[in-house]
């Protein structure tokens, strides 16, 4: 897998999420393209890289989603989305054997699972942070963590819907990504004859 291409698509997805994504809002749920790109990469990249590429995307998501503090300043907290994406990738990796990877609908389902788990971890990390550091307020304040999980679940559903056309488009760029297409050759009778 070419990391440069992955980083480029990740940055493009982040830029779209931060700008154009609002136009696709369904109710209060704005779809995010970043999980679609990450899931597409996880489903096609070598298995050992899955968690790392997800964490890198999560780190970028953390960097570009600052929290507004009570004194008006912004604070970038690294970790919540990074850990969330890591867990999401751990859930998606086993699906590689169950799903037909190049099918956009399979990718949509994988994106739904990925986004759901990532958001649960995101909320959990912030709750932990609030318990340890009393003066911190998460982005969903004054709402509750449960409410945020519910909201993120709806976002995950929308992400799953958006992933279908997005992954279909990403499939068109598959040659750029440099995914390995080598198949393991198993010796057998036919090969022996040849």
């Amino acid at each position, binding site marked *: 897998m070419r990391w440069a291409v992955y980083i480029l698509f990740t940055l493009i997805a982040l830029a779209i999420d*931060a700008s154009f994504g609002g136009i696709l809002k369904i109710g209060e749920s704005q779809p995010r393209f970043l999980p679609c790109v990450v899931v597409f990469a996880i489903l096609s990249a070598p298995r050992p890289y899955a*968690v790392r590429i997800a964490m890198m995307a999560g780190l970028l998501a953390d960097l*570009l989603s600052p929290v507004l503090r009570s004194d008006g300043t912004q*604070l*970038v907290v*690294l970790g919540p989305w990074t850990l969330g994406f*890591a867990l999401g990738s751990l859930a998606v990796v086993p699906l590689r054997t169950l799903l037909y990877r190049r099918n956009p609908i399979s990718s949509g389902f994988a994106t739904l699972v990925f986004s759901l788990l990532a958001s649960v971890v995101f909320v959990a990390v912030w709750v932990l*942070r609030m318990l340890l*550091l009393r003066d911190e307020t998460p982005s969903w304040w004054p709402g509750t963590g449960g409410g945020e999980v519910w909201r993120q679940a709806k976002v995950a559903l929308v992400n799953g819907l958006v992933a279908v056309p997005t992954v279909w488009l990403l499939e068109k760029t598959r040659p750029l990504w440099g995914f390995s297409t080598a198949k393991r050759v198993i010796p057998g009778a036919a090969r022996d004859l040849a």
Partner: protein
Amino acid sequence: MNATKLLQYLSTRLRGPRLDGALAVLALVLAILPARALAPWTGDVARIVAVPIVPIMHLGMALRERIRPPREVFDPRAPEVIELEMAAERYRTLFEQSRLKTEALERDLAAVKAVRARAGSGGVQLETAAVIGIDPTRREGLVRISLGARHGVHRDAAVILRGDIFGGVVANDPAEFVSLVRPSVRCSLGVRIYPAEGVDADRAPAVFPGTVLKPADGGVWLGDLASDAEVREGQVVRLADDRYGNVSKGMRVGRVRRVLPNDQVPLARVVEVEPLAHLVDEATVVVAIDPPEGTP
């Protein structure tokens, strides 16, 4: 040198799942660092990372604004907003005026219909007039209305309130466009006293006690009654006087306020009647104009 060795050690030891675990632990540590440890550097890193995506973001924003233009910020002090609010207030006032006018017209119409139903086909002309003032001298309590000789009003024409209450009579020869009305409370009236709960239509009026009411101080009438007449407070007093025309005959005049003993005549009592409505309090009245003499 030590750092290089440490990096070499880490690169040899942290591979595969170990590297993932180490990165996760590092992320967790970063996630629970206090703000004072993060604020000095994470914001700067974020700004650097954002640099390459800013052009794409601007492109996306331009596209978004093209597809869905942003709403303009509402300024409550903008001149057009103030003008619209004033216009809305103006139209609200006009609407309220129209509503009140409609209600008044409906009341007038109902009053005219009620009087017409009572007048029957006697050829009596009914006109609505506005109460426009009181007599400047105030000696006789006369009330000025907006109908005069030009409209056919004549002396002694009955003035009716709310469709069923005798309000008074035109006091003297009217002017061209206005008339002076003597309120009923200033008139001597021949009346009959009916039960408050209503009467059987078949019963003749003569079975109900009658009297002549004379104006008294305090805006009431006083009348003498025979001691055997059954009269109680609250009973309705209706006009039974031919002097005020057929239209007003039978109309309500007032209500029995008190029944008092007559000190001068032991076999009689005095009934005190208060008017049901005051002419000066009304906005519009109906004037019953008799047809000119010689009209069939």
